[in-house]
């Protein structure tokens, strides 16, 4: 990534995400929205998938969006953004676009990205639209009341993967969305966490600028207070532990090269990672886990790091 901001004071003071929205106290996605809108600047159009962010920010006749904003449906935000981008191109060519170099940004949750929106995302990436797609990942369908998604981690409790006597939470592993996006050979894709703001805003800006070459993708980790069952003052701590335990590595894929970013760049050495248990124990959704189940998660995490290490050597 290019370093556009050395400190948070280098960011514009202007706030483009208005207060008064209905997001939960301590919402990780709300933190992400504030930094996203600030970093992309005012000359951008936002296409938002149905989800928590959408319903809580646009209760007619109010809106939290100071950008031009469009919400159409759940599974099609990438297709809508493709249309917005194509329209700007066509209108500009005909001398009918008066707003200059307008950027197009998608904001979608994990349900709208990993699951129902995967097809339209793939189409947008394959067609090389100059769109920045931002996934805020809270690891379940939170808007409808905490149902399992393709992003929900193994063993996690959700309302559709309850902890029972026969089945204990989600059976499957979390889908590797970054791998899917990178397979489209996009110019730039990166992970970021609301706990590491400087890293996140520089990645947002880098990804935004790269849209002149084609589609870019950001996977932002955004903890959810009611869905993950932790106290609302712990959001940033949970997100930070996700990074520090290696559960959510910070890395970027820049023109075919994978680079781990601090602090994750030290985590190929397992001893530098905090024990996964420290991350899990803060959250009610993992409260039922046995030591054996935690060991299984750790084993899978080690395998994931081995895979990342190989990718980083490419």
């Amino acid at each position, binding site marked *: 990534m290019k370093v556009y901001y050395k400190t948070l004071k280098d960011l514009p003071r202007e706030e483009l995400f208005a207060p008064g929205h209905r997001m939960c106290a301590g919402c990780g996605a709300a933190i992400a929205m504030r930094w996203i809108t600030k970093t992309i600047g005012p000359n951008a159009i936002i*296409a938002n998938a149905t989800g928590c962010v959408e319903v809580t920010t646009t209760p007619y006749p109010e809106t939290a969006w100071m950008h031009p904003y469009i919400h159409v449906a759940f599974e099609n935000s990438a297709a*809508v953004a*493709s*249309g917005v981008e*194509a329209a700007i191109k*066509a209108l500009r060519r005909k001398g009918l676009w*008066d707003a200059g170099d307008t950027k197009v940004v998608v904001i979608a949750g994990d349900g709208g990205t990993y699951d129902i929106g995967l097809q339209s995302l793939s189409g947008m990436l394959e067609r090389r639209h100059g769109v920045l797609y931002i996934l805020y990942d809270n690891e379940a369908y939170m808007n409808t009341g905490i149902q399992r998604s393709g992003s929900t981690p193994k063993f996690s409790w959700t309302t559709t993967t309850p902890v029972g006597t026969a089945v204990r939470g989600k059976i499957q592993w979390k889908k590797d969305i970054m791998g899917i996006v990178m397979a489209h050979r996009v110019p730039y894709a990166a992970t970021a966490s609301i706990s590491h703001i400087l890293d996140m805003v520089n990645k947002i800006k880098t990804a935004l600028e790269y849209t002149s070459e084609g589609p870019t993708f950001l996977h932002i980790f955004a903890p959810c207070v009611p869905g993950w069952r932790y106290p609302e003052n712990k959001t940033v701590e949970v997100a930070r532990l996700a990074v520090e335990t290696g559960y959510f590595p910070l890395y970027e894929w820049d023109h075919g090269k994978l680079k781990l970013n601090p602090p994750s760049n030290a985590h190929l050495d397992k001893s530098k990672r905090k024990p996964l248990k420290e991350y899990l124990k803060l959250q009610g959704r993992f409260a039922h886990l046995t030591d054996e189940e935690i060991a299984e998660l750790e084993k899978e995490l080690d395998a994931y790091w081995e895979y990342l290490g190989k990718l980083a050597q490419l």
Partner: protein
Amino acid sequence: MQVQKTKHIEALTTNYAMAYAVKAVDVDVIAVYPITPQTTIVEKISEFVANGELNAELIHVESEHSALSAVVGAAATGARVFTATSSQGLELMHEVLHIAAGMRLPIVMAVPSRALSAPISIHGDYSDLMNARDTGWVIYIAASAQEAYDTVIQAFRLAESVSLPVMVSYDGFLMSHTVEPVELNDEEEVRKFLPRALRPYTLNPKRPVTMGPLASPDWYYEFKYQQVLALKEAYKVAKEVDSEYGRRFGRSYGVVETYRMEDADYAIVAYGGASYGNARAAADLARERGIAAGVVRVRLYRPFPTADVLKALDSVKAFAVVDRAIMFGSPAEGPLYKDIAAAMYMHGIDKPALGVIHGIGQRTIYVEDMYKIYTMLRENPRKEVVFMGVRV
């Protein structure tokens, strides 16, 4: 304003005629996805773009759901947009059909109609369109390649006037792939007919708006009622646009077309090219054989032209409605039949009305079949639905 003098006539399928209309309109963004029998529209449009004859962005989407979603995004950004689909594609779009209308976006879409699975059939009937009839779109059903061409141009004017999306439908294969002579307009004249309107609300960072918000029970109904009003307005504006188009280009159709209805005792009400053409031939035959027969064709299907349909049927003794779609389990299985029955009931009109289901999955509708309908009307006028042309 004067009627164009020089004539440019081409031999075109209705699908190609649609592409020529899109070129004349100077559309900005077109979503392209193949489905039979629509595909040759977007093939021809792609040729126009490849040859530099049409300055548009093509979006080669990965599904029809994305096709309509992409043109929703483009229309919201202020571009003039077009897409086309049929059958399963229209079904896959269904969610976004409602949204496009609810967001009041001036989208124009061609729908050469086709039967629905299962069993899969690539052939024509209007099952696809009829499933979309109450989505809030304006719907035209054309009966010739020329009319389809003219209607696309009218559709953009109407869409941009009343802020509603418009479908232009016609018979899959029987029209979509049938070559007819089509008089093409001077493109400069078309652009004068369709000036770039300044839409007050588009996605533009200079004038930010939020589109597609969440409406609580305190607001939702008002949004929906405005759509009701907009469609009522569209009934009026569609007639005005058709008249002005006629003055400029020398061709107009009305919202309902009639054939030999002046003194008709018995009428067939139909839509689309095959049904209308064969009904007219049957009316001629019936008149030769002493039956005062006529035909009423519904061209504007949504908003339903109640006043015009009732007026056209005012003096008949009995009529039949030929539907090329089945509304399963309905009190009467023909969708147009139900519309006319409801319109008549609301206006206190009680006439024998025969519902005829025919042409399903492109089962051949013979002129003799249509003639038989006239004899049924004369010999035993009644209210009943019959399934014609099927082995029972």
